[in-house]
Every structure is written in C-alpha cells, then in structure tokens.
C-alpha cells in the first residue's frame, strides 16, 4: 500500500515537473529527493552532518518551486522526443534552472551562504572517509577472534564437509543450490586446506587442519554487508547520518557478527542479497542517463548478484521478486512517458530482459555445470539420484558398467523406486508377524545394495528355466503378464486382499509360493509409463509400473518405516488408486542375463538439461521433506523479529566455550519499533496527501525519502520475512537475517527522518540542531554500548551459564527464553 502510494507520489511529481534536457554538471547528476535541514545548512556538526552541507541550495530551490504551486505538465518546455529526461522527481537542480534565476535567487538570498566548491570536495572526502571508517570497523569486528573456537560450530559440520567434498571431488546431495558450497570449497582450496578433515560433528577440534581460509572468506563477505548497507541507505536517502546509523546497527549487531564468522552459507547469501540491492539502487539512480556505461554496469551487476543469491539458497528468490517488482514499476513509468517512443521503451525492456533474466539464468546454469564437472566421483549423495544419473559418477557400480539393454525373460534384475531415498525392492526370509496381514514372507524396500534385492523375471504360466540355451531369447514387452521370483528365497512377489501393515487402505505385498510355484495372485502386468504399444523394456531408462492382475492394484511404496519386525526398512504396498504418482513408478537398475549382449551404459548418459532438472526435483523434494515433528521445539517465524530465542552455535555446559547466535536486543527491538513507527508515519502521510493536504516543502522532501526509499526497504523486509509463514518445512532463527538487514536499513532512514521532522517542528534553530545531533548520537552510542554489553555472545564466553546469578551475563538475560 505504502509502496503504491510512493509510486503515486512519484508519478505526480514527475508529471508536475517540466521536461528538461539533461545537464552535465556535477550538480545535476543523480541528485534527487533533496533533504533540507531546517535553516542551518552550514553549521558543521562534525563529519556526520557533512553530507548535508552542500545541498542547502537545492532544497531551497525545491521549496521555491513548491511555493509557486505545481506546474502543469503542458509547461514542459524540453525538446520534444528527448529521451534523456529526468523522472520521478529526481530533477531538483535542473528545475532550478528551468524556473529561472529570479526564483532561485530568493532562497539563495535567504540561506546564509552557498557552500563553496571547496566544501563540496570536503564533503566528498568526508563521505569516503566515513565509508572507509565504517568498512574498517566492520572488518575489525568480524575478523576479531575469528579463529576461536578452534572446533566445528553448528552447521559448519555440513558446509565445511561439503567444501571438502568439492576439494575431493566426491558427489554429495544437499537441499541448497551449489554455489555457496563451491565458493567455500574454493576458499579452502586456495588457502591450502586439503579436504582431509572429516567434519563429523560439532565440537570436533580442527587441530592442524587449515580452517581459517574458509572462515576468513565467509567473514570477508559478511564484513562487506556493512559498507553495502551504508551505500544503499546513502543512495536511497541522500543522508549521511541515516547511512551511518544503518551501518552502525549492522556493525554492532551480535547476530550478524556471529553469523558472519563461521563456515556457513548465510554470509554468502546475505552478501549477494545486499549486493543485488545496492546495485539495483545504484542503477535506479542512473535512470536519468539510460544506456550509459554506469547504467549498464549496475544493471548487469544486479543480474549477476541475483544469480549469486539464487545460486546459494532458494531464499534468493525473494530478492529476485524485489528486483522484479522494481523493474516492472520502472518499465511502467517509462511506458507511460509519452515523450519516449515505443521503440525506446522496447530497448529498455530488452536491456532488462538481457541483464536481469538471461544473464542470471546463464550464470545459474553455469554454476550447475561447474558443480557436475567438479563432482565426478561417487560419494554419499548417489542414492538420492536416479540410476541413469549415477552412471556418470566414477566409482559407482553403474559407472562404465556394461549390461544388457532390454529386459528378457530369465533376467536377474534389481528394481529401484524412482522416488528418491526409497531404495530397491527387497525381500528376506522373515515373515510378517502375527496379526499383520497374512503370515507370509516380508517384502520391503531397502536403501543399500544387497543380494536380497535380486529378482528373476519369469513368464506367468510356465516355470521352465528360461536361461536354458535351447530356448530362444524372449524379450519382455510393455503389457506382458510376468511373475517376479525372489532369487534368494525362490518366492514370488505376491499380493492379496489383506490390508498393508501401515497404510491401511492399501493391500499387503508378500513373498509367496515354494520354489517359484505359487498361485494366480503372483501375476503382475508390467507397463511402461507413457507407452502405448508392446515395446521392449529398457534398463534404467524405462519407467515401469507393476499392476497386480487379480486385484488391479499397483505396486508402490508408501515411504513409511516399518517397525522393528521389518528391520526398519520401508513398507511396500499395492495401492488400489491408479494415479501415476512417483510412489508407484520403478526402474530396473542391475540386469544380468548371460544370453544377451552387454552394451556400455555410456550411451545412456543423461543430457545436461536432464541432470539439471533431476537435481532440482531432488532438491525441492528434499526441502519439502524437512518437516518438523509435533512434540519438538521449533522456531516459529513470529519468534524472530522479537529476538525470542537464539541458536546455540557451540558449547552447552559452563566449562565449554559458548557461542550463542542472538541478535543484539537493543538493535532488534529498535528495528521492530521502527517498522511500526514507519507504517504509522507512512500511512499518515499517504492519507494526508490523498486528502489533498499541502505539505510544507521540508516535510514533502522528507516524506518522499520516507515513502520511496523506505518503501523499497519495507518491501524487502516483507518479502524476506512473510513467506516463511507459509513454509511447511522446518525453520531456524537464522532464516530471519536477510530480512533483518532490510529492517536495519529502514531503521536508519526512519530515525533520520523522524529526527529531522522533530527538529523542523522546533522553532529555535539552535534547539533543532542540538536535538538532531543529540538524538543521532544517543542512537549511535546506545547501539555501541549494547554491543559492548552483548559482545560475549558472539566472541564466545566461558564460565557459569546465565541462569546462574554468578555469571557476568546474568543481568543480560532479559528474556527467560535466552539460553546462554
């Protein structure tokens, strides 16, 4: 709502201002939404306020325009067809010139002094100096005690391990896209880590292994978040204090600090999110010079960062939505600008499609290409993927294997479930226990390779040995009636009208018969999915279904784990529902038939798009499979903004080195308050504007920053937070941190605006200045002091737990749910 309003405002301003040929002077560049600090532009409040000095003239001119009332669009005196035109009220300085010297002179006369060229240079220098200071502070905090604790903390056990996998080139499976782990692996490789550390469980000592390269890389990216925030806010608000405040909030947040110091995906993800945000904002500022070099640079950088964000975690999708929304509204404004020809708008559209869709997609796909190229050895992830996929991996038993291609009667086969992590059709010499269906031999699925997974395909009506060389080879075809005999026990795959052990609506599947002689309940029709005619059945590639002839049900596996009597293997059932779900589709993996010629499996290599698709399916299913259990403690999205509960990174007992991921409560609660305040203030301004109230010039400028810049950030916060309420998967506290970045930036803009508004409403200039400075300083010092209080959470602490009154942290346990 707010956002829409800000667009509305912007549109109105844009139409109200006359078209202008673009000025090349320094004052004209990217200057917009000027702020005015009431009355006293030249009084230096130290470096903090330096940014404001140079702009008094501009804000004054703006005030002049507003005093004259809005200009009708017809005034637009610019050359027709000029495509380089200011938009969205970013053209304060140009307007000054358009309005004419008489108007500009008036405020100039009122404002005490126009800052000289020297002070402008001074201001730029101050800006850079501040940036350097902020960056330095950020790096200092992030790299301080980076090597401690010298053992595995929390999820380092996963991501460090995956980095090692890249170094060792063994295949693994993870629910996140590969880029983040690849970068970790690369950092480890470059810093001399050899991939030999096992990363078994949190708390294991690193000893002589070099882990600092990987931690240092993550800390490096994590440190860059602060300057990025600083630059983004500066670009959005044009206010140095706001940028400084945002940077301070992030620097002094113990949560961001902790999350940046370890081998995790989050610093990498947040780096790309913030970089995408920054380049988007920068590129927005260049909108008055389309197709210029910086414009292209920032636009394509946005695309690259989007690819990076999505390549690390699927959460990157949210920043893509934000950029997408920004781009659409941007194009919408361009399209509504009648002075631009449709061809030009088309060019704009094409540029964005190229840089924001084609480029990221290419890069994203490229990361997968690298991923599959690097990981070419068999490893722990094989079982999650299809047989055809496994054939690619050296060391896997399917790699370079040669087996007969088409199924024939008499073949010995293993049958694998197409769905991941279900395994092979399996039977063994144990019966179903008393009271669970018929007391016949169990049939299950089993994840590991085993002799009991072998089955022989036989014709349903004869029991003659088909391997007898006197018989000709007869291939199994789609639609044939077959019998599957278990090789080890010579019992037939069998089903009947008894309910399955766990899924009560399905039928039980058993092994039945003696030496291959059973009854008509052993007959199955073999069908290939999406096949109409009696074709042969291919190993690995044909997706087959087995349909029980008598009951008409389909052989499937529910994926439920059998109790102990079933050795905790997975249940196999015959489902009467004939839907083509993955639960009932199988493929043949191993195939032994001496009468058939072997072919190399290399011809079956899946193509790259197939691999890409398959790995995405597996990842999505893996993500959906991460479901919380009823009686467990789980982190709920509503816990996060209130900093309800932290995450233990390391250590439990009072003798351990403890690191606890918890946001700096002062920062987080200030953020929370700011969001509420922002929504209130924003609605009030929006309603006032809608009611047609005339805002004073100063307030108008401030409210533009608030609604536009703040609106972007609020949208970012909402996009990175609210979707978690819809997610069914298990959630953790650290999922909130991308949203927290946005909310901290919003806090910076909001308090700067609020303080300026308060100062503006005060009559005395001296008071106003003092109030502004005092407010800002107290916010900065407050966060710094709270960081001083809470820093042991991030840098680690030893000693009694905080519940213990002897602990130095006892007084800081402000919520009972904090556990450090």
């Amino acid at each position, binding site marked *: 709502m707010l956002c829409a309003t800000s667009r509305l405002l912007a549109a109105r301003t844009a139409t109200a201002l006359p078209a202008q040929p673009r000025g090349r002077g320094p004052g004209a560049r990217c200057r917009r939404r000027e702020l005015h600090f009431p009355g006293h532009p030249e009084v230096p409040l130290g470096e903090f306020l330096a940014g404001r000095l140079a702009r008094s003239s501009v804000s004054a001119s703006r005030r002049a325009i507003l005093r004259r009332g809005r200009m009708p669009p017809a005034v637009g005196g610019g050359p027709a067809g000029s495509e380089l035109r200011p938009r969205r009220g970013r053209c304060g300085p140009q307007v000054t010139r358009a309005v004419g010297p008489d108007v500009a002179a008036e405020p100039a006369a009122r404002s005490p002094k126009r800052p000289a060229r020297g002070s402008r240079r001074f201001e730029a220098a101050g800006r850079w100096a501040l940036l350097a200071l902020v960056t330095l502070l950020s790096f200092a905090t992030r790299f301080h005690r980076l090597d401690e604790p010298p053992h595995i903390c929390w999820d380092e056990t996963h991501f460090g391990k995956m980095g090692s996998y890249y170094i060792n080139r063994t295949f693994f499976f993870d629910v996140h896209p590969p880029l983040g782990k690849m970068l970790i692996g690369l950092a480890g490789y470059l810093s001399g880590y050899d991939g030999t550390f096992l990363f078994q469980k949190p708390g294991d000592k690193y000893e002589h292994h070099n882990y600092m390269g990987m931690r240092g890389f993550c800390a490096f990216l994590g440190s860059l978040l602060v300057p990025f925030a600083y630059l983004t806010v500066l670009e959005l608000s044009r206010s140095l204090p706001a940028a400084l405040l945002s940077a301070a909030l992030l620097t002094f947040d113990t949560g961001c600090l902790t999350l940046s110091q370890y081998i995790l995906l989050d610093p990498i993800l947040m780096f790309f999110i913030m970089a995408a945000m920054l380049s988007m904002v920068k590129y927005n500022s260049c909108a008055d010079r389309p197709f210029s070099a910086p414009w292209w640079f920032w636009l394509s950088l946005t695309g690259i960062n989007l690819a990076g964000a999505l390549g690390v975690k699927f959460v990157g999708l949210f920043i893509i939505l934000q950029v997408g929304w920004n781009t659409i509204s941007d194009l*919408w404004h361009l399209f509504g600008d009648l002075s631009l020809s449709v061809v030009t708008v088309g060019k704009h559209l094409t540029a964005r499609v190229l840089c924001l869709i084609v480029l990221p997609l290419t890069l994203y796909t490229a990361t997968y290409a690298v991923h599959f190229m690097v990981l070419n050895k068999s490893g722990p992830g094989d079982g999650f993927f299809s047989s055809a996929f496994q054939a690619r991996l050296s060391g896997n038993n399917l790699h370079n294997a040669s087996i007969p291609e088409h199924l024939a009667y008499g073949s010995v086969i293993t049958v694998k479930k197409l769905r991941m992590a279900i395994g092979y059709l399996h039977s063994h010499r144990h019966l179903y226990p008393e009271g669970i269906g018929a007391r016949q031999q169990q049939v299950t699925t089993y994840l590991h390779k085993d002799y009991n997974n072998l089955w022989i395909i036989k014709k349903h009506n004869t029991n003659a040995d088909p391997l007898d060389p006197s018989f000709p080879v007869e291939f199994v075809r789609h639609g044939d009636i077959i019998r599957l005999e278990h090789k080890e026990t010579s019992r037939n795959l069998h089903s009947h009208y008894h309910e399955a052990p766990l*899924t009560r609506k399905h039928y039980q599947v058993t092994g039945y018969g003696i030496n291959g002689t059973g009854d008509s309940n052993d007959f199955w029709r073999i069908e290939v999915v999406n096949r109409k005619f009696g074709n042969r059945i291919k190993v690995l590639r044909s997706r087959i279904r087995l349909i029980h002839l008598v009951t008409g049900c389909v052989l499937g596996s529910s994926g439920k784990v059998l109790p*102990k009597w079933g050795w905790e293997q997975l249940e196999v059932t015959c489902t009467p529902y004939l839907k083509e779900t993955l639960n009932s589709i199988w493929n043949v993996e191993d195939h032994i038939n001496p009468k058939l010629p072997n072919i190399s499996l290399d011809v079956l290599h899946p193509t790259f798009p197939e691999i890409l698709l398959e790995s995405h399916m597996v990842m999505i299913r893996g993500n959906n499979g991460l479901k919380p259990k009823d*009686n467990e403690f789980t982190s709920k999205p509503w816990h996060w903004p209130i900093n309800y509960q932290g995450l233990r990174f390391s250590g439990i007992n009072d003798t351990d080195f403890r690191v606890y991921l918890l946001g700096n409560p002062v920062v987080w609660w200030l953020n929370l308050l700011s969001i509420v305040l922002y929504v209130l203030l924003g609605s009030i301004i929006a309603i006032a504007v809608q009611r047609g109230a005339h805002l004073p010039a100063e307030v108008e400028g401030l409210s533009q920053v608030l609604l536009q810049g703040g609106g972007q950030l609020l949208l970012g916060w909402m996009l990175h937070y609210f979707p978690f309420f*819809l997610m069914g998967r298990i959630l953790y506290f650290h999922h909130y941190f991308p949203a927290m970045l946005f909310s901290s930036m919003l806090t910076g803009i909001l308090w700067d605006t609020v303080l300026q508004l308060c100062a503006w409403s005060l009559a005395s200039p001296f008071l106003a200045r003092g109030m502004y400075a005092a407010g800002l300083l107290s916010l900065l010092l407050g966060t710094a002091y709270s960081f001083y209080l809470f820093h042991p959470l991030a840098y680690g602490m030893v000693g009694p737990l905080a519940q213990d009154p002897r602990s130095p942290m006892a007084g800081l346990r402000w919520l009972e*749910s904090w*556990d450090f």
Partner: protein
Amino acid sequence: MLGFLERPVVVTADINLNVVALTAVGLLSRLWQLAYPRAVVFDEVYYGQYISFYMKRIFFLDGSGPPFGHMLLALGGYLGGFDGNFLWNRIGAEYSSNVPVWSLRLLPALTGALLVPMAYQILLELGFSHCAATGAALLILIENALITQARLMLLESVLIFFNLLAVLSYLKFANSQKQRPFSLRWWFWLTLTGMACSCAVGVKYVGVFTYLLVLAVAGVHAWHLIGDRTLSHVRVLCHLLARAAALLVVPALMYLLFFYVHLTLVCRSGPHDQIMSSAFQASLEGGLARITQGQPLEVAYGSQVTLKNVFGKPVPCWLHSHQSTYPMIYENGRGSSHQQQVTCYPFKDVNNWWIVKDPGRHPLVVSNPPRPVRHGDIVQLVHGMTTRFLNTHDVAAPLSPHSQEVSCYVDYNISMPSQNLWRLDIVNRESDTEVWKTILSEVRLVHVNTSAVLKLSGAHLPDWGFRQLEVVGEKLSRGYHESMVWNVEEHRYGKSQEQKERELELHSPAQMDVSRNLSFMARFLELQWRMLTVKSDDSEHKYSSSPLDWVTLDTSIAYWLHPRTSAQIHLLGNIVIWASAGLATAVYALLFFWYLLRRRRCIRDLPEGCWLRWVLAGALCAGGWAVNYLPFFLMEKTLFLYHYLPALTFQILLLPVVLQHVADHLCRSPLLRSVFGSLVVAWYSCACHVFNTLRPLTYGDRSLSPGELRALRWKDTWDILIRKY
C-alpha cells in the same frame, strides 16, 4: 394527526418477471425428485454423522470447517423431525424411514436454486445488459456439477450462495453509495455484505478468500473516498467507520455467534472428547464431568491425582508408571539407569494415579485441614501402586538421547542418588500464590536438581515399554512447549488410614463446577485452535485430484451407484461451459492488459465509464475465480473436484461479461454483431445439449446401458462406473 389518511394507500410493485422465471426454473432444476436416491450419497456419509450429533446434542470436532454449515444442515433435520438415529457408515446405504431425506437436502437445494437469480442480479448491478444477465443465470442453471452438488446434503452450494450474496450486496451497496449514502437501503446492503461474508467463512474456511476479495474492493473504494475532496473530513471518517463496523466488526461478532450457538447445542460428551482439554471435557454433560463431579478443587499434600498431558499429541495420555524397569542396555548399545519405567498411557488405568507428597513430611494422606499446594512449592510425586518416587537424572532418555530419562526411583542402584524433588510451576496462574486446582491449572513440573521439565516426547517406546509413550526431562531453557504442561484430571483426597476416614468425611472439600468456570471465550478459543490444528489421517482417496485437473475437467467423482442397475450420480461438469469459461478468463486477461497498456500511452479505446465497469467486473469475477482457485495450489490436504465449484461460479459470471464486451466493442458492423449473436445462440444450445446428455449422471434417475455409458466417457480420466452383467 390523521394526516396520513388524506392520501390513499397505494402499493406499487415492480416485478421483474425475468427474476421470477429464473427463480422458478432454478427451483425446478434443483428440487426435482429431491428425495431420490433414498440412499447415502458420497460425502453425505460425512456430513450426516454431524447432523446426527446435533440431533443428539453430542459434542464433536470437525477440522474441515466452522460449525455454521453443519448447523444449517442440522436445521433441515430438525425441521424434518429427524431423531439422529441412523448409522452413517457406508456410501450407498439405504436411508431408514426415520430419516427425512427431503428436508435434509432442502436447504442446499434452495441455496443452489437461488444462485440462478442472483447471478442475474449481480450482472445487472455490475452495469451489464439484461441480456447478458439472463445469459449468466441460464449458464448457472445448466451447469451439471452445480446441480449435482446442490441436490445433496453438502455444503458447497451453501458456500457459493453466501459468496455470491456477499458480492451482490456489496455491489448494491456501492451503487447506492452514489445516490444516497447513509440511507436505510445503504445500511441494509452494507450490513448484509458483512453478514454474508461471515456466513461464507462460517460454512467453510475457504469462504475467507471471497471475504478478502470484498474487503480489498471495499478498501480501494474507501481509498477513493478519502481522496474525494468534496467531502468533509468528518463525513469521510463516518464513511470509514461505517465500513469498518459493517465489514470487520459485524463478521467477527457473527463468527463468535456461530460458535456460541454451536457450543450451546452440542453440550453432551461424545466420541471426540479426548482431543479436548480436561477443562473443556468437564464442561460437557456426561463423560469426564460425571467422573470428576464432586471432587475437591484444590490439590493438597496427600492428594491422589491423575496427570494428563495438555498437548496430547500424538494421543491424549496420562502420566503412568508400572513395575517394569528400563532395559539395562538398549538395542543401540546405550545403557539406562535400569529403574522403573515412567511413560504416558492413553487409557484410564489404576497405574495412572500419583500421590502429591510434601518432601518434609512423612504421611501420604491429606491432613486436616488440607494444606493446598501452591505455585512454586516443592513436591514429590509418589506412584500410587508401587509407592516409588518420580525421579529424573542425567541419563539419556531411551528414544530422545538429548533429553533426560524419567524414572521411578529404585534404590538398589546406589551409584545414583535419588533426585525426586519437583517444583510446581502453574503456567496459567493469575497470582504467584495461586493454589494448584484440579482440571483448571496447567502446570509444569520443574526438576529441582537439573531444572529439567517433565515432557511428553511423542515417541512410542518399543516392546519393552509396551508401546506406551515416552516421557522425558527436557531442559527448561528450551522454551515453552505445550507438551511440557500437565493438568490434574481425576483427584481425591488420600485417606488410607482408617481412623482418619471419619474426619475427612466430616470435612467437606470445596466442590468444583468447571462447566461454570470455563467462559465461552475460553471454550471458543480452545475449540477453534483444535479445529485448525487437528490433522486428518491418511489422506489418499480414489477420486482425489490436483488443482491442475480442474480447469480442464480432467477428473470426476462417482457419487453413488444404484445397487442393482447402472443408474448413478456422478460429479461431472458441463464441459462446454467449463471450456468456454476458461477461455473467457484468458480473453478477459488479454484484453485487459491490452487496454491497460494502451491507456498508459493515452489511447483510450473505451469510454471512461465503460472501462471502470469492465475493471470492476474483472476484479470481482476474474478476481473471485483467482482467489478461490489459486490458494489450493498451496494447500496440502486432499483435494477434490468440488473444491473448484466456488471458483467456477465466478468464472461463469465472467463469461457473459466478456461476450457482451466483444459484441459491443469489438464487433464494429451490425452484420458482424448479428453473426456473433447467432454464434452465441448456437454455442448456448450446444451447452444445453451437453447438459441434457449428462443429465442421467447428474440426477441419477435413469439407468443407461453400458454402451451409452461408454459413449459418455469423453475423457479417459472420467471414471464412469460400468456395471458388468
């Protein structure tokens, strides 16, 4: 005084015969042979049992929706004199003579019939012609799926009725806004909008999507109102307040009212009691209330109690112990304390009794006067049958190795001292000195030595634990979870020493009457919460489908098959209407974006009024379709074709909108227009023909031959039942 007599009393009536005729055919199509078949059809088996519960006033819990819909169905039963005695166990079972089938099915049929004139009214209010409006009504009339669904004891047609009513009354309200705001008519339609919305939500939760749509449209209109500078601030404020009251406050109150009536009606204990908390159960007649009647309210030292877990998942259960001990070594090689097992047991049992003991005193009986236990007191819990103390220690629990094992202390293991002191923490206390109350108090038992909390882990123990549920000690600092909270259910003062028996009888304990103690809001909140969190069991169904199948009608549901012939009721849509409605939505979207883009370049194809009408119609009809359809992609429950019907109804309303637009604005020449008109007529007759062909499956009145049935199987995915002779 008598001035009104000076003028004659004149009644002028405008009767729109269109509406009358449409209502009549609507009623005819929905009510014809309503009592046939006299057998349970499909989901009647599901709703019927709730009707029976209402008739017998037995409490039940249905997570599928709020109670208003069930109550409406039950109203039909009440008016028909149904006594609730019918066993709803099987689709196809013949109704016994005491079931008033006609009156039970009447209400859904009436609401289904009224959809026809309402469609007409909506299109009129949207500003389209009588012709288009009549077309919309006629399309609703011959939609087979809507007919099938309306003629049975099902809730979809009631839901659709309230959805359309909400939209219609909002449109009437918005139109009277232009003429006379704050008139009686204005107030009437505004309030009716709110009421219809809450009724829709009250029938099924999915009604909330239409409610949100209406709220969004109202919000946009209100925003324009704020921007209207001809109105004074006060007047704008009045407008906003009136809308907020009618569209937010009234629905909330109505929703509460449904639950109030529901809880008043179902006041006896029944089969679903177990899911609810003890306090709730005790507020029902019979059941737990009978057991707990007259038991003392305040738990005192020496009280004998049973402790029920508040969370109650996976099953409601009571803290339990028995003679058996934990196995010395578990299957995975870990060791245990080899002390007596403590579990959670889902059945009433003598081993569920525990005695609350004061650690400082010896006797296990209640003193005179009883000394009540308060929040923060340290207690010991003694297992009644084995007289062992509830204990926990730093030993990993059998199935949850991160938590502590809870046992009843056995003293032969000298290396482990007993740690049997527990601090009582009353979670829902109002003051810090509150007394532990039976049923009402929810308590946590915090172990004094290790600050672990007694918790139900939810795992089932293996055979050595008799498949009972595991109880563990969990660190207090992990936060609050309902599975850590227990309440006393049964309670009596211990009086094992005979000499004291008399004294205790003389001392009459404070009686409790929980049903009066539990407020309506407490009961409402609990019931609502349980309804939202109750999980339906195994979710596979033969006729379930995915939302993708719906638009193209790739699925169908067999509702009922005649026991002897091939006569059957089958939920199948009129495929011509489905296809053209889908097409119309696509055309609307394309045209809309085309116009929008051209307007942005200041090319106005449509006059302003026409454009606004076109946008509003799209927002309500296409928007209604989208909000009632798209959310199903995010839902994880089992879905059926009938879930699509609310969305379909909105889509059908869009169809004449698009047709009229094409005729008015895209057919430039009169010749083109007449060609288009005749095409529409041909298309409608085609739809009529399909309706007529599918009619035997809709009404189930005529038995078709296998050949005819096979001929009706236009899509491979339609599972039309064919009886083999």
